[in-house]
């Protein structure tokens, strides 16, 4: 969607003090509204959307005044296209009205957004009937949602209070008006400062400045040697050694030694350069990766939920590699070639300025050709990359789903699927190679034209004796023209290499710079001994601003009490647990432990005091004992055994040949869902927290095991605050108090018996589950 920044001239003139300006109130809107007798000072809320009721592109003003809601549809004519910077003031906007509707304020109620697949509608109750009032794309939905929020408030109690957070539109780069590609990361690819990126990269290599200097010097030496060699083997050899009368006549062995010596020296210097630069780049990338990893561990959970972990991992690795190769290979090569090219030119100019000029004529044409070839090459490479991705995904699909493939006897189809993609990759690979083998010889041919020019003009110069040209000098010239070839290829390559590296470094620094949303207080309150009283006070939370997942939840759990959280899946129970752990921060309200806001506690104290066993059980690569000890590596073997006993893990662990020393995790012994869950309970038990959250901790177990572990957990929860979240209500039979959560709100609270008497949601759920059990012949 096009979004142009306001120019100074656009800024609304004389807008009413109290207008809630959700979308920019521009001059053309003002003009359009005056035609309807609406003055800016009459407007209470103003918003703009971008689709007509027929879902065509349009400009639609949604205006709420004290008396009416106006919807004015029209087309926006923009004359004088905005420039690249989108700041150009030479833009005239005219609004041409096509349709308008208005509704009495008293007759409208409950404005809302109806979300469809791609578009959406603003709806409201008018005279008791829900009507669609205006349409919008997803882009305009943010503004309409805000309109709904404020209009709802204003229509119900006339309040026009605003929350300033709502008016920071952070979706667009303030510098160029371009859309941030990721709303969670305010990074504009267009405005990212490239110089800054390189400065930071250099800062990483500062430690190695002496080595880098050595690399630089040796590269210069290398280029110099490379440039001297042709001179010795051509001009010097023909004109001095082979020419009677010169001082060097006949000294063939000397020339041979000189040439061999030069070659040997360049080989030595070259390997030296390689060794140093490999060391420096390897350590620079190591430092870089470490910085990034530290940054990642510091970030809040929301950073990861917004992107795929696998993608992130790949990105970091690939980017670090790109930077590595750029510095290890790209920069030295570039320097070598640059020095070489300059040296070649200087020597050629000294030898014969006119011929040097002629030999450079072809260079621009050559550079252009190589640039075009590279662009085509990129497309081909990208295509091959896409094919290889698709082949790899087919491969990993078939291998990880091997059991399913076998059970449904789909081997043939899988083979065919793989074959198709593999063949495509082969074709694309062939295309790349064919192109490589035709395009580059062609480019070399163009460069060869330089040689022809030098042969022709140089030959004539030797015959006519113009400018003191000799046969040997001509030979040297030809050798030098050949030396220009490689640097030219290299420079064009370098453009891409350079931009790849900038991109990679930009992405990495972006991660390093991301701010965690959940931050530790600078001066935390020290609880000392946690008693374990938990209080939720009017807690509100949403993952994105649009939809509240938790809406005004309040409850308390006294120390040592067991609280059961009940509700349909998706009601927000696990979110409450995440909030108590401060994996996310509440949007409004507060969560208190022993009367202290958890935002004032240090992470160490909070997470030592609150333990969670969740549905998600992640086991790290290592032994079973290591995994149990994860949160308390100093725990004794006896403690590990006890924790495993309580969680019911001990029984299966002792049956394993290597017992607690069995290696598990990626690539090692595979545990069943129930076993994994028992280990993760053991992990939490070992932490021995004052407050224990059991989030569907026993969901993956059979009823018998669950019952056993439940009994153990009941013992464990004696004297500590426990919050239990469960689907199976039977799991919660020991909870002293139950809180029923529905759509993010507390529906009802009470003991099991109290709630049954109430005949509300809980009693309905209970009856349902009881019936289900009865049906299969089980009585609770």
């Amino acid at each position, binding site marked *: *969607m*096009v979004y142009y920044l306001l120019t100074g001239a656009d800024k609304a003139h004389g807008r009413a003090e109290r207008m809630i300006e959700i979308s920019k109130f521009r001059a053309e809107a003002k003009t359009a509204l005056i035609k309807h007798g609406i003055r800016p000072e009459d407007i209470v809320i103003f918003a703009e959307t971008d689709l007509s009721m027929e879902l065509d592109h349009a400009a639609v003003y949604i205006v709420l005044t004290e008396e009416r809601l106006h919807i004015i549809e029209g087309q926006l004519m923009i004359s004088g296209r905005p420039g690249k910077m989108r700041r150009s003031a030479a833009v005239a906007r005219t609004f041409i009205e096509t349709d308008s509707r208005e509704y009495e304020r008293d007759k409208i109620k409950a404005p809302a957004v109806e979300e*469809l*697949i791609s578009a959406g509608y603003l709806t409201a109750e008018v005279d008791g009937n*829900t009507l669609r009032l205006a349409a919008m794309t997803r882009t305009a939905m943010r503004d309409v949602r805000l309109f709904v929020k404020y209009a709802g408030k204003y229509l119900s109690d006339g309040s026009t209070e605003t929350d300033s957070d709502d008016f920071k539109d952070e979706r667009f780069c303030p510098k160029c008006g371009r859309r941030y590609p990721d709303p969670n990361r305010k990074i504009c690819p267009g405005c*990212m400062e490239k110089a800054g990126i390189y400065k930071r990269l250099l800062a990483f290599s500062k430690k190695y400045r002496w080595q880098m200097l050595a690399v630089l010097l040796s590269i210069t030496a290398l280029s110099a040697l490379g440039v001297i060699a042709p001179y010795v083997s051509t001009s010097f050899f023909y004109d001095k050694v082979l020419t009677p009368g010169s001082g060097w006549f006949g000294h063939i062995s000397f020339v041979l030694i000189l040439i061999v010596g030069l070659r040997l020296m360049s080989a030595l210097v070259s390997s030296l350069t390689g060794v140093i630069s490999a060391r420096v780049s390897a350590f620079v990338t190591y430092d870089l990766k470490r910085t990034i990893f530290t940054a990642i561990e510091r970030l809040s959970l929301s950073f990861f939920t917004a992107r795929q972990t696998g993608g992130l991992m790949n990105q970091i690795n690939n980017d670090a590699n790109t930077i590595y190769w750029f510095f290890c290979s790209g920069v030295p090569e570039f320097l070598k070639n640059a020095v070489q090219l300059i040296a070649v030119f200087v020597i050629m100019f000294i030898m014969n300025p006119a011929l040097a000029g002629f030999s450079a004529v072809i260079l621009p044409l050559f550079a252009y050709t190589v640039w075009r070839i590279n662009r085509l090459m990129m497309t081909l490479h990208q295509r091959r990359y*896409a094919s290889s991705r698709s082949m790899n995904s087919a491969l990993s699909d078939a291998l990880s789903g091997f059991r399913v493939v076998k059970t449904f006897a789909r081997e043939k189809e899988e083979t065919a699927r793989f074959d198709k993609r593999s063949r495509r990759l082969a074709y694309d690979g062939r295309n790349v190679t064919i192109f490589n083998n035709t395009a580059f010889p062609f480019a070399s041919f163009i460069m060869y034209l330089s040689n022809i020019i030098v042969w022709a003009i140089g030959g004539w110069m030797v015959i006519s004796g113009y400018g003191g040209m000799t046969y040997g000098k001509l030979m040297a010239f030809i050798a030098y023209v050949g030396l220009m070839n490689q640097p030219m290829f290299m420079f064009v390559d370098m453009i891409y290499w350079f931009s790849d590296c900038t991109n990679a470094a930009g992405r990495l620094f972006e991660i390093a710079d991301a701010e965690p949303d959940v931050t530790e207080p600078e001066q935390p309150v020290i609880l000392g001994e946690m008693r374990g009283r938990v209080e939720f006070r009017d807690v509100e939370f949403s993952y994105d601003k649009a939809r509240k997942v938790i809406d005004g939840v309040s409850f308390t759990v006294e120390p040592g009490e067991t609280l059961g959280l009940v509700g349909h899946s998706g009601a927000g129970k696990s979110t409450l647990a995440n909030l108590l752990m401060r994996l996310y921060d509440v949007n409004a309200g507060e969560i208190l432990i022993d009367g202290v806001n958890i935002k004032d506690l240090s992470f160490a104290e909070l997470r030592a005091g609150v333990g969670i066993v969740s549905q998600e059980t992640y086991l790290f690569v290592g032994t079973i004992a290591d995994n149990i000890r994860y949160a308390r590596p100093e725990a004794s073997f006896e403690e590990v055994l006890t924790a495993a006993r309580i969680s019911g893990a001990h029984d299966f662990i002792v049956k394993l040949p290597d017992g607690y020393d069995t290696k598990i995790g990626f690539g090692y012994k595979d545990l069943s869902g129930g076993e994994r869950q028992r280990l993760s309970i053991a992990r939490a038990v070992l932490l021995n927290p004052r407050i224990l959250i059991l989030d569907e901790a026993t969901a993956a177990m059979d009823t018998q095991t669950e019952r056993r572990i439940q009994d153990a957990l009941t013992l464990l929860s004696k004297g500590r605050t426990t919050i239990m979240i469960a689907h199976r209500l039977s799991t919660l039979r020991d909870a002293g108090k139950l809180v029923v959560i529905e759509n993010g709100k507390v529906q009802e609270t009470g003991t099991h018996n109290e709630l049954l008497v109430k005949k509300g949601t809980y009693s309905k759920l209970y009856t349902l589950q009881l019936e289900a059990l009865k049906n299969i012949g089980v009585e609770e």
Partner: protein
Amino acid sequence: MDNALSDVVKLEYLDPEKAEFMLKNGYIALKLERPENDPAGEENDPEGTESEYDRVFLHRCFPNEFTEEYISVLDRDGNELGVIRSIGDFPEAAREILRGELRRKYHIFTINAVLSINEKYGYSYWKIRDSEGERDFTVRDTYRSINRIGTDRVTVTDVDGNRFEIPSLAALDRRSRRKIEMYL
């Protein structure tokens, strides 16, 4: 094999004779002749033989393959009232109503030409032309946001969730096709 499956569970297709769609305040309402065995309906209204829904929701079961077939009809609470086997089976008036609502619900912008795709840091900035003019949009995770349906149709989803469609790659001009090709 098919017969055996449908013996177990019957898909509830809406019978054009027994289901009447109409517009109510711009929304679709449905009058449904109650099947003989419907305890829930009888409980609410023991006398009547019809159930009335002042608002129903349509959902394409196979949005990629069928635009007018296999449309699930849901009530306010998301309970399925039945499946429309094909809109064509319904009378003209109902067809109009259903098509209108589906068009709104599955609204998608049509891309007539791709003017440029600029890729930066894994994101891409698109400039396209649709029937009404040029537009820009931003796509995150370009490969995954482009969905190829069959061999010829492509949809693109931008950062906000707006959807764009190229109905036929073959019908696209060569330059546009070249620009999008490498993401397919």
